[in-house]
């Protein structure tokens, strides 16, 4: 059984500054990390490795620095890591990304399951999983939790806005694992050192996938016309009095808005 997990390197939100005057995100001092949502997909894949002996392949498209998150995945004991990197892939949209990674996944050979995060911390469109499943002609389960592979099929809960549906699909299938579906594991310490000392990351460029700049342009469908900072939120009322006085003021405020109700105990 082979499970492929596409992961993405994103900026740590807490380290990005918003420049309102220039209408841009200032990422000069920002730190890069593995997309938090992808950790849930990796965890599901690694559980299948622990329980069923699945072979887990982590794959990422991005600049050379994206190798860092693949090494981190190796430290969590994935079996193989592939970086798809090329200047031609810079700033592509979700549609082109799905095509590029789709080609890379085809090059990896047969597989049973593709597990993605539900949405990336970067643009947060949640489009990548569905587009990849469409490109590869696979059934998809979005916002999946409680994944269970039995024989040739996957059963999972698909989270809805209220409640969930239990769905079943024949393998191969793509599931976008929901945030909070599990407790993602930490990399191991021997794994962290071995990820650099002993393991390697396979690197593929556009020509390795037989892709030309035209292929990428053709599969793109997004045009960014403008970027701007969202409306500034009004500052809330700041209560600065002593703790006792502040607690009283908060309670008054809540009461005056009808946000509390008296409950009789006993």
């Amino acid at each position, binding site marked *: 059984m082979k499970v492929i997990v596409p992961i993405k390197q994103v900026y740590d939100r807490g380290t990005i500054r918003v420049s309102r005057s220039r209408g841009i995100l200032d990422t000069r001092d920002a730190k890069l990390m593995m997309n938090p949502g992808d950790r849930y997909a990796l965890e599901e894949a690694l559980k299948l490795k622990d329980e069923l002996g699945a072979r887990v392949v982590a794959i990422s498209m991005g600049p050379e620095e994206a190798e860092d998150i693949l090494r981190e995945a190796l430290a969590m004991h994935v079996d193989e890591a592939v970086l798809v990197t090329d200047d031609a892939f810079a700033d592509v949209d979700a549609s082109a990304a799905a095509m590029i990674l789709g080609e890379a996944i085809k090059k990896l050979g047969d597989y049973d399951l593709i597990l993605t995060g539900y949405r990336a911390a970067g643009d947060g469109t949640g489009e990548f999983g569905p587009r990849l499943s469409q490109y590869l002609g696979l059934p998809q389960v979005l916002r999946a939790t409680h994944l269970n592979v039995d024989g040739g099929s996957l059963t999972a809960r698909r989270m809805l806005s209220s409640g969930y549906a239990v769905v079943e699909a024949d393998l191969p299938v793509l599931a976008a694992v929901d945030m909070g579906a599990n407790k993602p594991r*930490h*990399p191991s310490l*021997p794994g962290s050192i071995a990820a*650099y*000392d002993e393991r390697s990351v396979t690197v593929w460029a556009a020509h390795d996938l037989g892709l030309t700049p035209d292929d990428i342009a053709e599969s793109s469908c997004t045009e960014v016309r403008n970027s701007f900072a969202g409306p500034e939120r009004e500052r809330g009322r700041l209560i600065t009095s002593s703790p006792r006085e502040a607690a009283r003021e908060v309670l008054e405020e809540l009461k005056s808005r009808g946000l509390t109700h008296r409950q009789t105990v006993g």
Partner: protein
Amino acid sequence: MDFTFEKKHELLRRTVREFAQKEIAPRTPEIEETHAIPLDLRQEMAALGFFGVPFPTEYGGSGAGETGYCILMEELMKGNPSVAVLVGAHTSIGATAIHLDGSDKLKQKYLPPLCRGEKIAAFALTEPDAGSDAASISLSAIREGDSYILDGSKIWITNGVDAEIFSVFAVTDKTMGYRGGHTAFVVEKGFPGFSLGTVDEKMGIVGSTTAELVFDGCRVPADNVIGQVGMGFLTAMRTLDHGRHGLGAGCLGGVEGVLKTCLEYGKYREQFGVPIAQKQAIQFMIADMITEMEALRSLVYRVAWLADSGRPYRQLGGICKLFGSEVLARAVDRGVQIHGALGYMRDYPMEQMYRDARITEIFEGANEIQRVVIAMEAFRKLGVRIEP
């Protein structure tokens, strides 16, 4: 000259930091209350390889070297000092004695379960009449067939309650003294005649256990001698020399924790209509803390680099322990002062930081002994011999 960390060490730091902040730090109230490190936490750490970081992969370690070990101690200390001491005493002295001087057979037998954290190690040297004066131990070991019979006791043994494997130093030949008369042994908790004595209550690091070990005709196989018979004092000193930069690294993490707490407090606490960060008295204390912290960081990782590149570092290791523990002592003292009365109250973290820090000036060679050794070395080069 290049001061950057290798990528593998950066990943190791991120991994340890994440775990220390998310999984260890939130357990601090429980550790303080129960005076123990929760077993499930220890097991999770064991599974992730926290107990074998510097040791070679052939024994189940991470092969992260002394740089990796210093990173581990720096980050663990910010998570919880008791947990850092559990890992520190296990790794840098308990298991290191076996790794440094043990036979291949001994290493093959004991290091893998220690690296996997299935068993915890401790280092047993101190006795009632042999603290800084480690040459004065009296625990006796008498050869009897294929065994040695150990009689006597050890006190203040860090990890005493948790450990199952002890590196124990005993007198095999009284007439020879420490030069040729002391021998190191691996003693298992289950050996007949071994038992725990008094379990000590401490001022700080209350989650780390400290206990008396009692040897009452304790039978230890002769195969469990670490290194050569009669060379135990050297093993003890070499092991302690090996552990000191790790302790300095722990102190570095401690200072980082104090600084973070003080910066946050200085930002929010208002007096005379402004945050106290605006006051020069606070600024000077913060600036001194940062200055000493950065000097310590340079020292710690310079020693780690010396160790990993096979260069001598013995004296600098001692300097690292001495300077680190005193930088931490000054930092916690300033930290309490910056927090005022809050710094003295149990409900706020500074009070625990203050108590936890104090031991670093005492254990693994009191600072006075470090000073003597540093001076001894300096005079030795001029042909002047100093006896401690």
